[in-house]
């Protein structure tokens, strides 16, 4: 039952949420004076400390649920509240733990940007929104934070708003997210109309109150929301474009704040989903994982490769939700957060140095294109070490966090598929294939960027690339440490020792274990990864298999499945044409009616003005003129001459007399 008693863990969690908000307000109030980011960074640091305290107090303890009355509509009271269970505090720590190194890194990465004070303000808002989302106890509050997350990401993706591509990208992200928000809203409306409340606890305790078809519809609607937020195929198109934002922002979006929201939502309201919805989720997740990994194979923009890798990994998480093992999905979310954040920070460091080389040597090149890089291993050894760890985690190599979560996921998918029939049995095999593709594209990236020789040296011999500054390396090395296994499990090879999953596992989410798979799958995936790595090495470092570009599959991958072109033709252009038509209607018919009315009014007014001037005013002027004329006549009588007065008097008497005489006669 919800309480209203404030306790220390609760206060800590609340302050963890509200501190970034305070940082946001303070940064906004200070304006340019907050340019060094001290406010935002210290806010997130304190938030992390508070979150850690809350975590230590609440993890594996009974959940704390507190509610206050918010507002009342009719009979129905709405509450604002905080629900602190294992999931919430885990996310609380994760978000602030990822955000802190990003803040520190940003201070160096964004140094000298003219709009940096805006950057800190948005970043604090972003963190606040995500932290609020994870502790919210009802769908309405969650939705508000959900929208705030979307809005803050819109601001950050379009941070360099003078760049047209950035403006297009943030518009795209916002619009695609609106599609998902409609799903969330429909889900909320269904929940409210059947349950009469928006509390998540009420929803997950008794989802069966929703009648059968509506339960499925609500589940699909919530999933639509998560699809847009967590970039699931075919609504993933905004995420690769969102690379137009600063790289540090990308790392935050991809790791813990934006895309994690969708997965978190699904895990939070997991009991709502029935078998149909779960199968849809698993299928969409598989398609996403495969398509994104496939698109990542041929990209040349370093950030785009990482973006597709994120989408692919989010697909994995969705499969985790879809097979009913949301603890595994959240565990993969956590491990992925660390290594993906690290990958982006490393990419940021590389781009930073390439940009530096471009500016000092006045080169005409794209600092994000991996074809311009090569051989950076010797120039940036620490960055190389960090990105190597992150890449191995992404590929699912043993001794990394990624190994634990990804193999757990694949193993559980096999267990799940054993209970399924038909095409669903294919899902785990697809995932194995995807993990092969993952190893391939990430090793391709490593090979192109860090091995061979620096391509731009062929233009200018004296180009020197330096190691990233310490304030960028520090957070990177910290995250590299977090990407390894000790943070998650004492046993580097067996996922059943993972404390995080043990804390999250609930009775609703267990599958009959297949013991053999727990041994076979890790061995298989690791072996396959090694083979693929060997192929990639031969291909890109030794140049053994020269790439035959231009084939159908190559082009399909390079153009990201022509999805953007399809959307452009199927949605964007019809909408633009429709809006042009509506503009025409508005311009000529609606405005025409209004203009016609106004013209009619004007002509009426002209007639009225004429009448007023000629008739009314004329009458008034006539009276004035008569008075003036009379005055003029009688003025002459008042001339002060005595004898004139006499004459006048006499004349008047004469007239009166004559009148009498005439009348009397």
């Amino acid at each position, binding site marked *: 039952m919800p309480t209203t008693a404030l306790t220390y863990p609760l206060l800590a969690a609340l302050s963890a949420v509200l501190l970034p908000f305070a940082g946001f307000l303070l940064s906004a109030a200070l304006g340019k004076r907050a340019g060094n980011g001290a406010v935002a960074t210290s806010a997130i640091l304190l938030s992390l400390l508070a979150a850690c305290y809350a975590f230590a107090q609440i993890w594996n303890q009974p959940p704390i649920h507190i509610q206050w009355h918010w507002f009342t509509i009719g009979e129905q009271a709405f509450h604002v509240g905080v629900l602190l269970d294992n999931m919430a505090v885990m996310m609380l720590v994760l978000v602030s733990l990822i955000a802190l190194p990003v803040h520190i890194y940003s201070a160096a990465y964004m140094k000298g940007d003219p709009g940096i004070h805006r950057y800190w303000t948005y970043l604090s808002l972003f963190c606040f929104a995500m932290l609020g989302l994870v502790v919210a106890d009802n769908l309405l509050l969650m939705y508000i934070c959900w929208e705030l997350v979307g809005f803050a990401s819109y601001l950050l993706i379009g941070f360099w708003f003078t760049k047209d591509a950035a403006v297009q990208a943030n518009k795209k992200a916002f619009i695609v997210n609106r599609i998902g928000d409609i799903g969330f809203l429909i889900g909320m409306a269904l929940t409210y109309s059947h349950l009469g409340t928006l509390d998540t606890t009420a929803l997950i305790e008794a989802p069966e109150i929703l009648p059968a078809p509506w339960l499925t519809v609500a589940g699909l609607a919530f999933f639509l929301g998560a699809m847009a937020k967590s970039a699931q195929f075919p609504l993933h198109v905004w995420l690769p474009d969102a690379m137009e934002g600063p790289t540090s922002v990308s790392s935050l979006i991809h790791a813990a704040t934006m895309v994690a929201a969708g997965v978190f939502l699904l895990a939070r309201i997991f009991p709502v989903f029935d078998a149909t919805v779960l199968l849809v989720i698993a299928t969409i997740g598989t398609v996403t994982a495969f398509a994104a990994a496939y698109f990542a194979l041929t990209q040349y923009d370093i950030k785009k490769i990482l973006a597709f890798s994120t989408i692919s990994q989010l697909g994995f998480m969705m499969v985790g939700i879809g097979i009913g093992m949301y603890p595994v999905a959240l565990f993969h979310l956590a491990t992925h957060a660390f290594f993906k954040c690290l990958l982006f920070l490393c990419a940021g460091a590389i781009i930073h140095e390439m940009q530096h080389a471009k500016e000092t040597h006045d080169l005409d090149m794209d600092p994000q294109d991996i074809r311009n890089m090569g051989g950076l291993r010797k120039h940036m050894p620490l960055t190389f070490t960090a990105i190597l760890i992150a890449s191995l985690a992404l590929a699912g190599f043993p001794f990394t966090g990624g190994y634990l979560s990804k193999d757990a996921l694949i193993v559980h998918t096999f267990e799940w598929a054993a209970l399924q029939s038909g095409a669903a049995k294919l899902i785990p095999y697809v995932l194995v294939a995807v993990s092969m593709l993952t190893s391939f594209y990430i090793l391709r990236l490593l090979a192109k960027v860090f091995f061979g020789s620096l391509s731009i040296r062929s233009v200018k011999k004296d180009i020197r690339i330096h190691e990233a500054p310490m304030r960028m390396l520090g957070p990177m090395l910290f995250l590299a440490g977090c990407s390894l296994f000790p943070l998650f499990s004492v046993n580097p090879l067996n996922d059943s020792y993972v404390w995080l999953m043990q804390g999250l596992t609930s009775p609703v989410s267990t599958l009959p274990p297949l013991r053999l798979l727990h041994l076979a799958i890790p061995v298989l995936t690791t072996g396959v990864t090694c083979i693929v790595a060997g192929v990639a090495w031969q291909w890109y470092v030794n140049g053994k298999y020269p790439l035959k570009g231009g084939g159908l599959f190559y082009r399909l991958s390079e153009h990201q499945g022509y999805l953007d072109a399809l959307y452009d033709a199927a949605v964007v252009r019809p909408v633009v044409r429709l809006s042009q038509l509506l503009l025409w209607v508005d311009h000529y018919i609606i405005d025409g009616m209004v203009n016609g009315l106004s013209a009619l009014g004007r002509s009426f007014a002209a007639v009225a003005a004429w009448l007023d001037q000629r008739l009314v005013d004329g009458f008034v002027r006539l009276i004035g003129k008569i008075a003036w004329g009379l005055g003029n006549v009688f003025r002459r009588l008042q*001339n*002060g*001459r*005595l*004898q004139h007065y*006499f*004459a006048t008097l*006499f004349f008047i008497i004469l007239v009166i007399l004559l009148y009498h005489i005439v009348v009397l006669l």
Partner: protein
Amino acid sequence: MIPLTHFLIVGACLFAIGLYTVMARRNAILVLVGIELMINAAILNLVAFSRYDKTAYGGQAFALFAIVLAAAAVAVALAIILNAYKFYKSVNPEDIRNLKD
């Protein structure tokens, strides 16, 4: 006996002369004289009509009153003219055109 008509004609002539004098003269004293003529024309009429009142002689009594009143009026008027002359240095009514100081 002189008929009434003659009196009336003489009175009308006197009145006409007096009126002309009042309106046409450029000397305030002569204007006063004209007024006297008109008053006398009126008095003549009173006296002439009093033949129809043989018992009370109301007309003649009124004539006496009128003569006295005329004398008083002339005295006042002459005083006004004297003062006006002192102020305007003129007895021409054309020059006496405003009443203020």
